């Protein structure tokens, strides 16, 4: 679960990492109220997850309750790369001398958290990494040993962090590491980590991505979900614990794909593309799914108006073919989806029983994935 900047900064502040003074507003009136309480040179920032909001006009300045109106009105409701800014963060402006970079993420290869730092922070750090890899310092922390100050000193030295802020840097890196584990994050990133004119380090931005599996330990973050601009179908799927993704795509000639197992669904999407089509809806019913789950999956995928054909690909292991078939028939009976826009491939456990259920409902299953993909694409192209 990715957090908006203001949510990330709330976590930073609790962890003792310095952030600019600021408050979030959802309306122009709230923005005016904030500026009335704290009339000072401020920056107004669109709260979106996508990058590049500055170029898109999502960052503006103001100093008084009067001149916040225009920026707030402009940004609230603005769409940036398909994402609607529903909130703005109003923060005091800082006098920044240098922009550093600091992040911690999960390094799959070493199976460890990796701390990444650079003295060349800001928008172009990824470019720096590609062109000047020596300007990027990394340290893979053994989680059993944990963070010790020498790690921060070593990174700071390697990344050429200015000596004058070394102590602060080592401290912030330690707090960021503690926060990373405390909240179960996949990523915590401060970019830029600003050096102000008076020599203080301040987290000028905050990107936090929480491990969804870790949220069982953090029910307190669930309330932040509503802030996230997911597609409504994704929200609906999540509410019933279904693994569904609404993918971008042209939308015409689209195939919705349902399968058991993320790998199989991805493989099926590959097959759809190989057959000349495009999959825009990904739905994994998981292992051992009951009829009810299948029915929900069909309901959600067919609710996407872009979908012109539905391809259900099941390879039964612990998932039973007859359960899937029953769910499918129930979904079609209770819904408006037409059988002739459906392709089913069913094999593995209880395959025979499943096929019988389908045939009784007038549905014939195909034999192979390739065959099914070809047929689904043909249906989608008919429109």
């Amino acid at each position, binding site marked *: 679960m990715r957090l908006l900047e203001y949510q990330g900064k709330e976590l930073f502040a609790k962890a003792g990492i310095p952030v600019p003074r600021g408050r979030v507003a959802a309306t122009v009136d709230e923005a005016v109220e904030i500026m009335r309480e704290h009339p000072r040179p401020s920056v107004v920032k669109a709260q979106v997850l996508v990058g590049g909001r500055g170029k898109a006009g999502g960052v503006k300045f103001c100093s008084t309750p009067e001149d916040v109106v225009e920026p707030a009105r402009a940004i609230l409701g603005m769409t940036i790369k398909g994402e609607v800014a529903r909130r703005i963060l109003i923060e005091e402006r800082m006098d920044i001398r240098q922009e550093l970079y600091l992040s911690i993420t999960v390094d799959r290869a070493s199976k460890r958290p990796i701390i990444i730092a650079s003295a060349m922070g800001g928008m172009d750090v990824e470019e720096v990494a590609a062109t000047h890899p020596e300007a990027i310092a990394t340290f893979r922390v053994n989680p059993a040993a944990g963070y010790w100050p020498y790690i921060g000193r070593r990174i700071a030295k390697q990344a050429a962090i200015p000596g004058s802020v070394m102590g602060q840097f080592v401290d912030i890196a330690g707090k960021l590491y503690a926060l990373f584990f405390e909240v179960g994050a996949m990523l915590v990133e401060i970019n830029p980590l600003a050096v102000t004119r008076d020599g203080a380090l301040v987290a000028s931005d905050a990107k936090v991505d929480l491990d969804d599996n870790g949220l069982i330990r953090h029910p307190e973050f669930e309330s932040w979900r509503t802030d996230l601009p997911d597609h409504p179908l994704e929200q609906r799927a999540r509410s019933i614990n279904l693994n569904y993704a609404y*993918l971008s795509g042209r939308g015409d000639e689209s195939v919705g794909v349902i399968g058991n*197992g993320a*790998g199989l669904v991805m493989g099926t999407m590959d097959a*759809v593309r190989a057959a000349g089509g495009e*999959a825009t809806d990904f739905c994994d019913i998981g292992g051992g799914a009951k009829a009810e789950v299948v029915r929900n999956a069909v309901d959600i995928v067919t609710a996407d108006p872009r979908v012109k054909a539905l391809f259900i690909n099941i390879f039964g292991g612990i998932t039973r073919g007859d359960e899937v078939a029953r769910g499918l028939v129930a979904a079609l009976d209770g819904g408006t989806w037409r059988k002739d826009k459906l392709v089913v491939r069913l094999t593995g456990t209880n395959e025979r029983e499943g096929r019988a259920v389908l045939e009784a409902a007038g549905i014939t299953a195909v034999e*192979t994935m390739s065959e099914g993909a070809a047929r689904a694409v043909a249906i989608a192209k008919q429109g």
Partner: protein
Amino acid sequence: MSIYIDRASRVIVQGITGREGLANAQRMRAYGTAIAGGVTPGKGGQTVDGFAVFDTVADAVSKTGATVSIIFVPPPFAADAILEAADGGIRLIVCITEGIPVHDMLKAVAVLPDGVRLIGPNCPGLITPGQSLVGIMPGHVFAPGNVGLVSRSGTLTYEIVDQLTRAGIGQSTCVGIGGDPIIGTVFTDCLREFERDEQTKALVLVGEIGGTDEEDAAAMIESREFTKPVVAFIGGRSAPEGKRMGHAGAIVSGTRGTAQAKVEALQRVGVPVADSPAHIPELVRRALA
């Protein structure tokens, strides 16, 4: 021969009194796996469907001599179950559980003792066809033979194995390593084992977008640490790039991790990469020729 498990492997089931644990214990036993018993804290001394239940892994190991365990406990307790297995004397731990917090796994993997192998979590387990199934795969699609398989995917693997078996190509051992960010056993671990295994004459590697496990395997092939013929498939080639956030991922993996990068890394070291699972049997046949 085979890798990791064979007919002699004695297996305990952690979480055996749960629905999943019991059903799969029965399926494994039916396949021929030597299930020595199971563990459920507080239910030691009971018997479920002929399986002896113990309170702790240490107890189960000392009383049954098992050296393999398979874990079916719920996500919040699974990392604890893994470490209990290691502490209790288990040498091969197969964790099926899906949805374990990544940070639980970061900690558990970091303290797993040397000499203990973890497969998974969030994996279908492994099978040495005709001998032992320690997992949740549909055993009937597998057939004994001389092709090894290692995969990050579950159901996609069944699909591929089904095609291999129908094409008359049997398998030595098939390992599903799981798709979570932090897993115990990666491709290169399995390649090392398959290299030593005399029965295995060729290998099917089923990768997926994300991470650099496929690139690492390619590097191992390039350095001749793995010398047998390999056929690969990379799942998710048509998947859109996820909504990316932050620069850290890009800094860590650079240009690696995409389907494109994986396919190229493998092809560069002479590994044919199938466009579709349907092409795999033909590529394997050629590799064995």
